């Protein structure tokens, strides 16, 4: 009985997900032209620079590896208009704050990722994705 109930629950949840209409829009460039969909990664680092600009916003974080070596990464997000519509304001990013950034590595292997999902210092999880770039949908964020 319990197993059936659990299966029912998963079915309902899956049905809800499946019933959500898929949105396909266009952005400044295709996600697939810049990022590798097979190389998701998580970065945890401190903010060193914020560029609240078009066609993309960028923020840069220092990430320390297991050996203590620090590397500066660029995180590419949507433009200010897109991010603001999701409730993400420029003032949410302060130098020295710690961010968790889940995204996809640039296809050219440089220290650049798509800031698909960002956990802000206050705990909010927001989408940094470029609106309608054809990239993966990310549950738990206001991903377009």
């Amino acid at each position, binding site marked *: 009985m319990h197993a059936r109930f659990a299966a029912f*629950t998963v079915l309902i949840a899956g049905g809800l997900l499946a019933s959500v209409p898929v949105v396909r829009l266009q952005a400044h460039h295709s996600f697939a032209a810049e990022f590798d969909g097979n190389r998701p990664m998580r970065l945890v680092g401190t903010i060193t620079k914020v560029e609240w600009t078009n066609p993309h916003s960028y923020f840069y974080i220092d990430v320390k590896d297991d050996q203590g070596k620090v590397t500066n990464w660029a995180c590419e997000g949507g433009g200010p208009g897109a991010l603001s519509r999701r409730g993400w304001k420029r003032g949410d990013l302060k130098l020295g704050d710690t961010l968790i950034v889940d995204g996809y590595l640039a296809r050219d292997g440089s220290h650049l990722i798509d800031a698909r999902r960002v956990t802000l210092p206050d705990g909010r999880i927001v989408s940094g994705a470029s609106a309608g770039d*054809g990239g993966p949908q990310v549950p738990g964020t206001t991903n377009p």
Partner: protein
Amino acid sequence: MKIAYLTTALAILMLCAPHASAQGVDELARADVKSSKPAPRTAEGHTDFNGYWKSIRGTITGNIGKDLPGMKLPLTPAGEAALQHNLTATIDPESLCIIGGTPRHNASGLPFEIVQSQKKVVFLYFYSYYRAIPVDGRKHTEDPDPSFFGEEIGRWEGDTLVVDSTGFKDEKVWIDENANPHSDALHVVERWTRPDFEHIHVDTLIEDSKFYTKPFHYARTWILGQPDETLAEYSCSENNVDQSHLGFGPGGIRPDGTRGYIDPKPLPPPVTPAKK
């Protein structure tokens, strides 16, 4: 024990809820609605197209061949060669801050705005580009300077605004987001209508005898945005860091005709539940 399962069920539904509500955000597209009001008219009695127009959720965008069987464009051998060139040797011109032009902007998923006067209809686009179409009885010039939007001449046929465009550029252009090509022989005829208050529609005839064996159509309907919605400033070359990281072509095309990975690997799970 049942309570435990109920908790599990609620937890799963809560995980789904942000996803569902996120999809409900009308950032660039809007769910369709049935309109109860007729299209407005200008003082001159023409169809009034003024408004902020958004994609209807579920529309296939970015693919100029979406209305063709199998979405297969009737490419000539020269057109096929141009497509392969676009796919393997060109970066999306729009990402290099080059105007998308006609008909690419009509295939885009991004909103646009129309400002209409007695003798001009102006389309304002998301990337701060615009086209101002004269509707004053003039004819095409003999040898227009090539441009991305072409030389556009408007005329009224009843309630329909017909925009006839020739004189296109043939370099640094993709006809849509998927890197399909067009040549300088492109001729586009757009027939714009407003079937009711909430909707605007275009039926587009695309002719290009160099790259396509026969003319084909592209049709599309958009929905009216909210009264306070408008375009924001967008300076494409302000900080185009991504430009040097972009590969050739649009990347993969999915079975539904849109660009993107078919089955990307998932991100790590979120570290904490999303706060409201």
